[in-house]
């Protein structure tokens, strides 16, 4: 049986009907058709589905949709600047050649954003720790770490 829930998605209040067995990822991609958030493994291993819930990076593939109720959720679609430009993290990834196939990128951006929102000047270890749960098959991570570092150092 469907249940009504209300939550904040990218600063907009959403009211929608959900099946309690859905994950947050399913609601985002299949129902709301916001396909920026990716599904890789579906088991919490790869981080492609990372979103920010109440300020913290979370794997949306393991997040019961019913827990979205009343919480504040940000996805990759919600981080564009008001001017319409890319977020500084996205710009840095582009500039550092840190995007190849791009499948891991939305998750990487959300993990990095959660870190930078929490810690203004993270160390390299903080950066590596923040993306340890984000798999990338293409880049070898070095450019991704450099990109996040450049944002952290540049502000």
């Amino acid at each position, binding site marked *: 049986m469907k249940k009504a829930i209300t939550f904040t998605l990218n600063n907009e209040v959403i009211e929608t009907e959900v099946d309690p*067995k859905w*994950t947050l990822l399913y609601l985002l991609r299949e129902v709301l058709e916001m396909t920026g958030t990716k599904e890789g493994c579906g088991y*919490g*291993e790869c981080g492609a589905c990372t979103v920010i819930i109440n300020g913290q990076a*979370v794997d949306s593939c393991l997040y*019961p949709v019913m827990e979205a109720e009343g919480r504040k959720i940000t996805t990759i679609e919600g981080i564009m600047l008001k001017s319409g430009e890319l977020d500084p993290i996205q710009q840095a990834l582009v500039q550092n050649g840190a995007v190849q196939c791009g499948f891991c990128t939305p998750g990487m951006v959300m993990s990095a954003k*959660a870190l930078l929102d929490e810690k203004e000047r993270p160390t390299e270890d903080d950066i590596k720790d*923040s993306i*340890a749960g984000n798999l990338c098959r293409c880049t070898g991570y070095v450019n991704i770490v450099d990109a996040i570092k450049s944002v952290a150092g540049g502000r």
Partner: protein
Amino acid sequence: MRSYEYYKPQTMQEAVGLMDRLEDAKFIAGGTDVMVLLRQKKLALKNLISLRNIGDLVYIDKKDGLKIGSATTHTEIVKDEFIKRFYSALNDATTHLGSRQIRNVATVGGNICNAAPSADTACPLLVLDAKVIIVGQKGEREVDIDDFFLGPNKIALERGEIVKGFHMPQFGDNTGSAYIKHTRRQAMDLPMIGIGARITIKIGKSEVRCRDALCTIDTISNVLARLQDEELEIEDARIAMGVVAPRPIRAKQAEAALKGKVVSEKLFREIGEIAATEAQPRDSIRGEAWYRKEMVKVLVRRALMRSIDRVIRPDDTIYPERLW
């Protein structure tokens, strides 16, 4: 996936009542074990009872020891400087558990109640003498964590009972603890062996702090060699081992052999040998039994060294990665 109802009680009593009333039900906290099992179709049920919205299950209380609510996330434990300083083994374990995304939602109660032989917080809670606080329809009861684990995914919880939290005694400056997770990868890996240790040094006999100038840069072996005539006597010690038996276990013979002895590297080497005789690891894809047994010797010794290190120079070793 089969459909289920999802309940969000606000109090413990409500949660316990729901569990009593509903058939085919399970508690879900962070869901990082439960959701995986559901998605892999290894678990089918009609009702999920969420513990995520019960405020009374989330606490870190530092009066007379340490009390941690079962729905406290690993991230909250990692961030706590008091836990890092006085209950270091727990910080070691939560720091390297899963990924940031997992730690942000996964809870210590879920880790213990899932009762995997590899559960990272099990050894720390065993060496820190945690009591499991259980709440049911009839009230509250307490169980030693050592009596709580019954086997793989089996715990001493009656139907309808819920774990409220874990309470640990107070430890002073004369106690150090550590947990070492032996993995193939540095991140996102379950331990092929997990070793926890705690040492409490007898106070009064000698100065336990290392004050010599070399202390901040020297290896713990050298520091111990120089401190030999201080005769640091072990008042109490614990050793716990993960992934060497169907459940996380204490190496009780090794613990007994430490009691009353004077700290030395040689002693720790002998203790490692004793602990290895108490370990019954199996062959698995993560590592073969003989290798695991050999590593028990090394890691028990290392965990004891790290524990004593944290007693003699707490300020320097509080960030262990630098030295080990």
